[in-house]
């Protein structure tokens, strides 16, 4: 890994941490505030690609594990890895990996802006909703002993918010690619 890749991963980890410190942003059209930290995880994949995106998320989790309150709401310490919702944190790593991988494979420089945005959206949706909830729900069901159906029902309320975040990640990812391209491209 080159020093530049290491620095990019560390800087993005710092962005994810900082997004957990700033107050939630309200969207104009829905009355629900957007907590920016999980948006940051999708953005890591969309902007940096699979490998560097995954490393930046791993760094955030390592910082949390060693007792720094880096997760939104000032959470941190080993207790966050012993909670019923830990599956979602583990899922973050794969959110960045899958979102990043799909972005690398699907998005090309020669595509039109709309196609790029749609492809980024599909990548963020697969990583940030399908994969994330897969990990979150399975972990919740296994750890608490509540059934899979119950775990799914309990998590469903949060899915619309994450779909909106995937859309924001797609629009922001495309804008960053225009301004400062970093995503590794298919040859």
């Amino acid at each position: 890994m080159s020093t530049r890749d290491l620095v990019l991963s560390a800087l993005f980890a710092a962005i994810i941490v900082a997004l957990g410190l700033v107050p939630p942003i309200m969207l104009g059209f829905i009355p629900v505030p957007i907590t920016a930290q999980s948006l940051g995880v999708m953005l890591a994949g969309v902007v940096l690609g699979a490998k560097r995106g995954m490393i930046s998320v791993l760094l955030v989790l390592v910082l949390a594990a060693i007792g720094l309150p880096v997760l939104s709401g000032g959470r941190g310490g080993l207790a966050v890895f012993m909670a019923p919702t830990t599956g979602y944190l583990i899922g973050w790593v794969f959110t960045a990996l899958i979102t990043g991988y799909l972005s690398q494979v699907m998005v090309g420089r020669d595509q039109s802006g709309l196609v790029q945005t749609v492809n980024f959206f599909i990548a963020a949706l697969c990583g940030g909703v399908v994969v994330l909830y897969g990990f979150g729900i399975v972990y919740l069901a296994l750890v608490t002993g509540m059934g899979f159906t119950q775990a799914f029902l309990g998590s469903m309320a949060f899915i619309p918010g994450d779909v909106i975040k995937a859309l924001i990640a797609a629009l922001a990812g495309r804008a960053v690619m225009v301004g400062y391209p970093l995503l590794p491209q298919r040859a």
Partner: protein
Amino acid sequence: MMRSLHVDGDSFLHRLQPGVKLTALAIVSLCLFTIQTPAVLAIAAIIGLAGHCMLRISPRQIWLRLRPFALIVVVVALFTAILNSPGEGLTAFFRLAALALFASLVTATTTTGDFIDVITRAALPLERIGLVRAQDVGLSIGLVIRFVPEIVSRYEAIRDAHHARGLKLNPISVAVPLIITTLRSADEIASAIDARGIRRQK
């Protein structure tokens, strides 16, 4: 801005090796999952709570540490109690509470530096097979801690620029300039690290 959750002290737990504490935590957690009796799990939770009282911090501070987990534990326990049975809800409550309390205890009695040492040592076998460089772990952690305050002040500058133009904050118009201005500095930082020979090249 980022204060570690470590609490100074010289209790038995403080003096224990970090590696021993982490191994013990893993074993205890596995045991908690195999125990099905609510009474035994309740005793474990009480031991975890008693451990917090030995840290010599005020009850209010203990509550502030536990608050982030209290809500989710209660919600999941209620959910299980309603959907499955009250008995299972009680088991889930005490098990999850005990897990969170023991983990929080290890965090409170171990310094960030000790943790980094443990991680670096754990990464050495991975270094031998060429997957990571163990020293990079500490370097990356340091970089993140160093740049968080800078990124927060960048966020504040972007927020003020929005206000000055009479614009409302919008996730895209905040995230894009924040990401681009931050990542642009990567080249300079990387050159600075290489110029000082911090990562010895093979």
